[in-house]
């Protein structure tokens, strides 16, 4: 999926990019491509998954107090944990774990979007 975003490029980042002859797009693209919760949690022994780590740190930093959404997150985090735990401890199959985790992940996404839509509809009517 392609998306146009607007970013404020900080001076230090810009200078660093120019010194090493890197375009900001190429660098950010590399990071963004590596962010994957299903991969992260299905490959617990793969080290240096910094991109996803950074994303999770950000999530934990901004954690919001919306009760409805927190409940959904809790439910799907539990679900993802039990699915992964099952596959990893019984079959030790990381590929299978990843694809199953991705399924739950998509369900989670749908549930969150639906909840938000519900909220908006309630507001309108």
């Amino acid at each position, binding site marked *: 999926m392609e998306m146009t975003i607007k970013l404020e490029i900080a001076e230090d980042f810009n200078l660093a990019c120019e010194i090493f002859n890197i375009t900001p797009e190429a660098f950010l693209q590399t990071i963004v491509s590596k962010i994957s919760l299903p991969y992260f*949690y299905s490959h*617990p022994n793969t080290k240096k998954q910094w991109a*996803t*780590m950074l994303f*999770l*740190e950000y*999530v*934990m930093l901004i954690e919001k107090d919306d009760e409805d959404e927190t409940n959904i997150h*809790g439910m799907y*985090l*539990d679900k*993802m*944990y039990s699915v*992964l735990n099952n596959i990893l401890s019984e079959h030790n199959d990381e590929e299978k774990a990843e694809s199953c985790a991705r399924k739950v992940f998509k369900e989670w996404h749908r549930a969150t979007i639906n909840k938000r839509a519900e909220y908006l509809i309630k507001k309108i009517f």
Partner: protein
Amino acid sequence: MNNNNHFLEIPLEFRIACLLNNFKIQDVLQAYINHVSFFCTLYNSKLSGFSEATYITSEYSVGNKDNQQQTDEDKPAINRMVAVKYIRQMVALSLKTQFTETIRLKQSKKMVNKLFSAIESFKYCPEKLYIDEESIIVFTKDFRIICEIHNIYPKAYLEHFMNKVSWAEAHARVDLDADTMDSGLLFFIKLTNGLGNLKRQEIEITDAVLEYIDEAEQLRAKHYLVRNLEQRIAIYREFFLEHYNRIINQYT
């Protein structure tokens, strides 16, 4: 329960918590003793450090009363008239809320000293205790008074405190925003945040230490999926134990 002062049993989780924070075990125990205040047992203290240390001590004294038959022999050898006088004064002092708690605690010291002199013989709490051949902890007047009045050996209080400390539980509770925290654990966390100015030992930076620092930073994100407190504690416990073993094995 072993009712004497020999062989202080130091639980593994407590050893782990001390080592991973570069604290000496004796320093942590001494800090606990220094923050137990007889004066604070008389009212609901809010004084940071003192309230937690005193609370776990009182909790043990009270919990232990039920299954203990006090005989005449157990009664503290104390000049009752004098003791009652000074305890009354302290209760009155605790109600003088126009002064801050720190000031009241300071003022109570004189009465604690008088109360201490009213004790004729010490059956339970000696002046100091050896933890091993090199380490020694010294008991304060406050602490010795509490031991004598409740007929409890210091060993029992110290072990009660140590059993509350778990580095895995501290992390899990903070990471999951669990709102209740045991006083013993809270006291230890406050020590790690600078209470009592505990000295951090200088350690050799070995590969095992570096690896621990690196992985500990990622711990919370790695287990973000685990929402259940008990499960999270179990996972962290295993993590800290593994690193503890690696670190101490590098020294030997």
